[in-house]
C-alpha cells in the first residue's frame, strides 16, 4: 500500500480537516501540560468508575459527533443546494451520507442518551452507583474506540461509502474495495459490544439497586424507558454482532454469506440488518419519551397522566419493534402476504404511540406550566413528532411505499422522527439535567434563541423534502439537473440546514457563557423536581450520590417528601460508605481493541492477533483482580455534605 493511499491526500476539504485536527490536538496537549492537568485527567476521568463522570464524557463525545455529523449534513446540503453543483463528487458524497447516517445514529444519538442514562438512572432510583462500575468504564472505552476507529477512516485509508445500511453486494470487496467498509464493520462491532454491556448493566442496576420501597410500578418514566430500552439492546445487538461478523468474514476470509455467487444471499443481510436496525430506532426513541415524560411532569407541576398506560405502551412498542423490520424493504420482492403482515404490524405501533401523545397532552392539561427551555423542547416535540409519525403511517402502506420508497419523502420522515424525538430529547435532557451535572443552569435567554432558531431551521430544512420526495427526487443522489425542477425546494431546505448549524453555534456559545456568568446553585433542586436525582446536591453529586440512601413511599418521591416537609438531607448520623476503586484496565483494553480493529481494517492479521492477545490478557488480569473497593469515611462524608450545601 502506498503512502498516499494510506493517508488520504489531494482533497482540500480533507486537508482542512486534517490541519484543524492537528492544531486542536496540539492545542489540547499544550493546555493539559501547561496547566498540569494530565494526572487530573487520568485520575478523575479516564479511570473513573463514577457513573456521573462517565455519563458526562459520553455526552461530551456525543456533542462532538453531532458536530461531525452536522458538518457532513451541511456539506451534503451544500452539494444539493442548486442544480449541477460540483462541490462534492459522487464518491465523496457517498462517503459523506454513509458517515453522516452512521455517526448520527451510532455515535451521537445512542451515546447521548446512554450518557444521560448514566448520569441520571442511579440517582433517580436512589442507588450509589450502577451494578457493574468496572463494566461501565469498559463500555465507555469500547464506545470511544469504536467511534475513534470509525472516524479516522476519513483521513487514513478512506471512509465507507455503502450507506449506513451497507447493503450487499454494494458493500462487497468487488464493488467496494479498500479499507472503508472494514472501518464500518469494526467500528460498529467494537462499540456494539460496549452498548450490549451497558444494556446488561442498566437492567441489573434497575432490577436490583432501587431504593427501598420503590416498586417497579413506582419507577420514574425515564427509568422505565431505560429498562425497556436495555432489554431491546440485549436482544437486538447480538443480531448486529453476527451480521457484522458475517460480513467481515465475507470481506476478509472469503466466505459467501451475502455474496451473489456460491449460494450467498444478499437479502439475508438486509433482513439481519433491519432485525437489529428497526429496534435500534426504538433504542433511541424510547429514552427520549422517558425524558419528555420527566420534563413535562416537572414543568406542569402534575404527576404523569396515565402512568400505567404509559408503561404498557412502551412494553407494547418494544415487542412490536421486533415485528416490523420488513417495512424497510417492501419493494425488494417479499410478496404480498409478507408485505401485508409487516404493513399491519407497522401501523399497529402508532396505537401505543398515540396513547403516549395523549397522556403527555393530558398531563399538561390544567397544569401550572412554566415554559422554561427544557419544557419548550418537550412541547415542540409533540407536533413535530406527529408529522413524522403520520408520514410514517403513510410509508407503512406497502402499496403506497412503492411510490415513495427511496425518495426524499423517506428522508424527511425519518429526520422528523429522529430529530423531533431523539435530538430534541437530547437537548431537553441536557438542559434539564445540566445543573445536576455542573451546578448551574444554562442561560435561559440564550437557550430560547437556540430553541427557536433550531426548530425553525429544522422545519425549513425538512418540510420541503416531503414535496421533493413526492416530486420524485430520489435519496442518495449527489446531483440533479435544472430540468428536474427540484431547485427551489432544495435551496430552501439547504437554507434551513444552515439555520440549524447557526443554532448549534448558539448552543456552544451558551455553554461558554453560562460557565462564565450563570449563578451557581446551592440547593441541588434546580427546577422544583419530583424524582430522587434532585434530592442530592449539585454540581456532580458526591461520588457516593446519597449520604443516606432514601426510602421511597410514594410515586414522585422527592415531590412527596417536599410536600410532607421531609428533608432527605437531614441526617443525624452518617455511616461509612463502600465504593469501587478506579481502574485503568478498560482503558488499556481499549487500546488493544484499537490495535486489533485497526489491524483487521487493513488486513494486517499479525496486528489483529497482537490486539486480541492483549484483550484476553487484560481479561485474565481482571479475573485475578480482587480489589474490593474502599470505604468513604464518615469524616469525609460530613465534610463533603457540608461543603455541598454551602453557598458558592
Amino acid at each position, binding site marked *: 500500500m502506498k503512502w498516499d493511499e494510506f493517508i488520504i491526500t489531494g482533497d482540500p476539504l480533507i486537508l482542512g480537516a486534517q490541519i484543524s485536527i492537528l492544531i486542536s490536538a496540539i492545542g489540547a496537549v499544550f493546555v493539559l501540560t501547561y496547566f498540569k492537568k494530565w494526572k487530573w485527567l487520568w485520575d478523575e476521568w479516564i479511570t473513573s468508575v463514577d457513573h456521573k463522570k462517565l455519563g458526562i464524557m459520553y455526552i461530551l463525545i456525543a456533542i462532538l459527533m453531532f458536530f461531525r455529523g452536522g458538518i457532513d449534513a451541511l456539506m451534503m446540503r451544500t452539494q444539493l443546494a442548486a442544480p449541477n453543483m460540483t462541490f462534492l463528487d459522487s464518491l465523496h458524497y457517498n462517503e459523506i451520507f454513509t458517515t453522516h447516517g452512521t455517526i448520527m445514529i451510532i455515535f451521537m444519538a445512542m451515546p447521548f442518551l446512554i450518557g444521560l442514562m448514566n448520569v441520571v438512572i442511579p440517582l433517580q432510583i436512589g442507588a450509589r452507583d450502577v451494578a457493574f462500575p468496572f463494566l461501565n468504564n469498559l463500555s465507555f472505552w469500547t464506545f470511544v474506540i469504536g467511534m475513534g476507529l470509525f472516524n479516522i477512516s476519513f483521513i487514513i485509508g478512506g471512509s465507507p461509502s455503502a450507506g449506513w445500511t451497507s447493503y450487499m453486494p454494494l458493500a462487497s470487496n468487488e464493488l467496494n474495495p479498500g479499507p472503508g467498509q472494514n472501518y464500518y464493520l469494526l467500528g460498529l462491532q467494537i462499540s456494539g459490544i460496549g452498548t450490549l454491556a451497558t444494556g*446488561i448493566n442498566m437492567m441489573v442496576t434497575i432490577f436490583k439497586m432501587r431504593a427501598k420501597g420503590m416498586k417497579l410500578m413506582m419507577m420514574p418514566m425515564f427509568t422505565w424507558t431505560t429498562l425497556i430500552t436495555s432489554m431491546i439492546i440485549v436482544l437486538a445487538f*447480538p443480531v448486529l454482532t453476527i451480521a457484522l461478523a458475517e460480513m467481515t468474514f465475507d470481506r476478509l476470509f472469503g466466505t*459467501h454469506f451475502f455474496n451473489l455467487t456460491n449460494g450467498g444471499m444478499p437479502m439475508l443481510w438486509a433482513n439481519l440488518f433491519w432485525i437489529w436496525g428497526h429496534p435500534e430506532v426504538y433504542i433511541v426513541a424510547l429514552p427520549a419519551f422517558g425524558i419528555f415524560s420527566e420534563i413535562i411532569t416537572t414543568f406542569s407541576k402534575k404527576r404523569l397522566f396515565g402512568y400505567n398506560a404509559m408503561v404498557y405502551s412502551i412494553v407494547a412498542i418494544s415487542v412490536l419493534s421486533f415485528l416490523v423490520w420488513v417495512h424497510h424493504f417492501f419493494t425488494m420482492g417479499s410478496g404480498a402476504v409478507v408485505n401485508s403482515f409487516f404493513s399491519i404490524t407497522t401501523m399497529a405501533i402508532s396505537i401505543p404511540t398515540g396513547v403516549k401523545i395523549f397522556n403527555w397532552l393530558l398531563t399538561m392539561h390544567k397544569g401550572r406550566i412554566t415554559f422554561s427551555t427544557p419544557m419548550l423542547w418537550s412541547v415542540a416535540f409533540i407536533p413535530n413528532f406527529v408529522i413524522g409519525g403520520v408520514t410514517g403511517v403513510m410509508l407503512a402502506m406497502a402499496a403506497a411505499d412503492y411510490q415513495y420508497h427511496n425518495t426524499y419523502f423517506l428522508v424527511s420522515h425519518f429526520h422528523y422522527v429522529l430529530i423531533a424525538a431523539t435530538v430534541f430529547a437530547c437537548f431537553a435532557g441536557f438542559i434539564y439535567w445540566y445543573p445536576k451535572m455542573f451546578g448551574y443552569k444554562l442561560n435561559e435567554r440564550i437557550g430560547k434563541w437556540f430553541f427557536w432558531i433550531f426548530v425553525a431551521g429544522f422545519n425549513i430544512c425538512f418540510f420541503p423534502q416531503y414535496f421533493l420526495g413526492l416530486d420524485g427526487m430520489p435519496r442518495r443522489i449527489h446531483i440533479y439537473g435544472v430540468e428536474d425542477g427540484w431547485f427551489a425546494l432544495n435551496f430552501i431546505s439547504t437554507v434551513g440546514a444552515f439555520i440549524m448549524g447557526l443554532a448549534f453555534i448558539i448552543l456552544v456559545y451558551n455553554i461558554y457563557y453560562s460557565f462564565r456568568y450563570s449563578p451557581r446553585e446551592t440547593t441541588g433542586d434546580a427546577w422544583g423536581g419530583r424524582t430522587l436525582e434532585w434530592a442530592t446536591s449539585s454540581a456532580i453529586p458526591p461520588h457516593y450520590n446519597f449520604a443516606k440512601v432514601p426510602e421511597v413511599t410514594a410515586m414522585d418521591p422527592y415531590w412527596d417528601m417536599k410536600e410532607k416537609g421531609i428533608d432527605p438531607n437531614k441526617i443525624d448520623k452518617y455511616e461509612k460508605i463502600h465504593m469501587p476503586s478506579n481502574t485503568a484496565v478498560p482503558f488499556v483494553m481499549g487500546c488493544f481493541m484499537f490495535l486489533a480493529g485497526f489491524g483487521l481494517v487493513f488486513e494486517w492479521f499479525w496486528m489483529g492477533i497482537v490486539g486480541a492477545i492483549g484483550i484476553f490478557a487484560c481479561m485474565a488480569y481482571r479475573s485475578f483482580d480482587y480489589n474490593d473497593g474502599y470505604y468513604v469515611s464518615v469524616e469525609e462524608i460530613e465534610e463533603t455534605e457540608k461543603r455541598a450545601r454551602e453557598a458558592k
Partner: protein
Amino acid sequence: MAHAQDAEYANEPLEFQSAEGRNNILGFWIFIGAEFALFSTLFATYFVLVNRTAGGITADHLFDLPLVLIMTFLLLTSSFTCGLAIHAMRAGKVKQLITWMAITLVLGLGFVGFEIYEFWHYAHEGATLSTSAFWSAFFVLLGTHGLHVSIGIGWIILLLIQVKRRGLTPRTTSKVFIASLYWHFLDVIWIFIFTGVYLMGLGGL
C-alpha cells in the same frame, strides 16, 4: 455496593450471599439471554443457507455420525461433571470441586480436539469456509460454539487457580457458579447443533 454478607441471604448458597454475587449472577443470566439471541441469529443464517451449496460438496457427504456422537457424549458428560463440581462446591469441598472441574475441562478439551480434527478432515475433503454459502454458515456456527468452549476452558482454569489460592468465598463461588452456567449453556446450544445441523443434515435436509 455492600459487599458484606446480608443477613437475609444467610441461608442461601455462598455465591448468593453477597449483593455483588447476586448482581453478577443476574447480570450473567441476562448475558446468556444475549448469547441466545446471538446463536439464534447464527442458526437462522444456517437454516437460510442450508441448501445453498452451489452445486458443490454437500453435508450428508461428509457428516459422520459416530464422530458427532463421541463429541456429544464428551460435552454432555462434561456438563454432568460440571454439575457435580458445583454440588461439591455447595458442600464446601474444595478438593472435590477442583477434581470434578478438572475432569470437566479434560472432557471439554477432548471435544475441542475432535472438533478441530473434524474441521481439518472436512477441509481435506474440500469443504472450507469459502467453498459455498452452506459451508460458510456451517463453519461459522460451529466455530463460534467451539470458540466459546475454548474460552470457557481458559476461563475455568483461571478460576480454579483462584479457588485454590483463596478457598470458597462469596466472591470465588459466585465466579465458579457463573462459569458453570456458561458451560451448561454451551451444552444446550450443542444439543441444538446436534439435532439441527447433524441429524437434519444426515437426514438429507
